[in-house]
């Protein structure tokens, strides 16, 4: 049973870990998918903004200027470096205008998303009518040329597209018609600055819902295991109770059976001494069975069903009388009982019969579990305005792990060293019900092998 239970807990924990793994994997996949979708949306938005007449007219500003520079280059009026420098200057001039158009367009397409745009030169070459190609700029040139947008590191950015501007250009060179072919390659990049905040915002509902669902499953599992443990404990307690009551009933019944056999035996016939002894035993066993049945019946009462007949009396006198009577009923030579009874002067309102039963139960328990030196105290606790009755013993004590269960119905501490103590696990339960019926409380302080202190508190009326 214990192994089965541990196995069940282990499987539950394993399932929970697997659930966390699957949940994490699904959230990660959703994140990646969202990122891809977002990237596609961003490209489409950029396309919408970029491929417009307004942007095209801005770009023709540097294109026309660049043709003029290339003509000058062909005529030998400027160097390649000058031509490129002029291209840079021109694009720097028109870039603010482009950025204003771009940002306005992007704000309309994807509001709240900060996407940087960059169009840079990959290579520039010019071919003449004879097919000779002159390369003005190569991609690996350390002096990078940015045409439009914002200058960011391309390595961490996403490439949107390559474009190739090829155009034949006729011009007059020293009075003669001339021609060149331009091959102008560019790359367009985008860089999303707030990837994480955009995606986190989009996934936040999913993430929070997953966390809540997970917490709910953990809570449900915890509740189920707690419930299972409780059920298991109840089942064990009931089995223990049945075993105990069977044993408690079997002994007097066997004794009665033997007594009857003895009385009817031909050997005992006419022997008055044997007959008297057997009759006395039958009487005692009858009382014993009656008490046992009463105890079981009483224990079925909850504190709400206990009908109290309260009266007001002096608690100090009551306690002294109760202890005097109790000492007469036990072997007082083996038990040392110390009294610490205060003359409180404050009346105690309680049902004498039930309160006596509760205190005697505690005294009996103290002796039953090895107590030989008992200290009974009575007084007023001014901090919470209650009458307190405490019973301290030097018995075997109760390990802290069992203390919270000892007032439960049928519960008995079942450690190896306490198997020898007979009982049904009803005494402390019934005592607690009596005290609760009085509106009071009962608590225990104990340490294994060092004794226990049970304290009853009844409110001052």
């Amino acid at each position, binding site marked *: 049973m214990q192994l089965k239970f541990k196995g069940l807990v282990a499987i539950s924990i394993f399932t929970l870990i697997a659930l966390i793994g699957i949940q994490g994997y699904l959230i990660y996949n959703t994140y990646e998918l969202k990122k891809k979708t977002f990237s596609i949306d961003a490209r489409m938005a950029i396309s919408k903004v970029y491929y417009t007449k307004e942007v095209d007219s801005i770009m023709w500003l540097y294109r026309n200027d660049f043709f003029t520079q290339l003509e000058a280059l062909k005529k030998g009026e400027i160097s390649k470096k000058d031509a490129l420098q002029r291209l840079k200057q021109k694009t720097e001039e028109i870039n603010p205008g482009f950025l204003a158009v771009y940002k306005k367009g992007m704000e309309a397409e994807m509001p709240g998303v900060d996407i940087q745009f960059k169009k840079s030169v990959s290579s520039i070459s010019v071919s003449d009518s004879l097919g000779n190609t002159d390369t003005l700029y190569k991609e690996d040139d350390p002096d990078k040329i940015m045409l439009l947008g914002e200058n960011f590191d391309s390595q961490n950015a996403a490439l949107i597209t390559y474009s190739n501007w090829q155009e034949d250009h006729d011009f007059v060179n020293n009075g003669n018609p001339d021609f060149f072919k331009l091959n102008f390659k560019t790359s367009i990049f985008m860089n999303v600055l707030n990837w994480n905040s955009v995606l986190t915002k989009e996934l936040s509902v999913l993430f929070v819902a997953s966390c809540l669902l997970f917490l709910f499953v953990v809570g449900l599992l915890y509740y189920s295991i707690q419930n299972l443990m409780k059920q298991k404990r109840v089942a064990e307690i009931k089995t223990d109770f049945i075993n105990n009551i069977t044993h408690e009933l079997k002994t*007097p019944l066997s004794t009665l059976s033997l007594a009857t056999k003895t009385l009817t035996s031909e050997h005992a016939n006419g022997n008055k001494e*044997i007959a008297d002894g057997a009759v006395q035993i039958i009487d005692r066993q009858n009382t014993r069975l009656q008490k046992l049945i009463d105890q079981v019946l009483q224990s079925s009462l909850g504190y709400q069903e206990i009908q109290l007949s309260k009266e007001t009396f002096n608690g100090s006198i009551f306690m002294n009388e109760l202890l005097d009577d109790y000492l007469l009923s036990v072997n007082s030579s083996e038990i040392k009982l110390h009294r610490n009874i205060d003359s409180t002067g404050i009346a105690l309102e309680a049902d004498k019969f039930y309160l006596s039963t509760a205190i005697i139960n505690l005294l009996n328990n103290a002796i039953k579990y090895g107590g030989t030196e008992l200290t009974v105290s009575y007084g007023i606790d001014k901090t919470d305005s209650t009458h307190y009755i405490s019973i301290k013993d030097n018995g075997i004590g109760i390990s802290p792990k069992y203390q919270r269960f000892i007032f439960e119905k049928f519960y008995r501490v079942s450690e190896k060293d306490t198997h020898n103590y007979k009982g049904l696990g009803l005494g402390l339960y019934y005592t607690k019900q009596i005290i609760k019926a009085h509106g009071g409380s009962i608590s225990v302080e104990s340490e294994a092998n060092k004794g226990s202190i049970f304290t009853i508190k009844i409110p001052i009326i």
Partner: protein
Amino acid sequence: MKNILLAEDDLDFGTMLKQYLELNKFSVSWAKDGNEGFEFLRMAILTSVFWM
């Protein structure tokens, strides 16, 4: 007469059983706890043991 060791902690049941066995011609040694029972076992030769 056969000897029987009776180990029983219940006073009334022990008394009755001892008496009943004696009426039926057994000699009964009654141990009221386990330690006492082992003492009897060490000392005596017994026919049967009733360990209750």
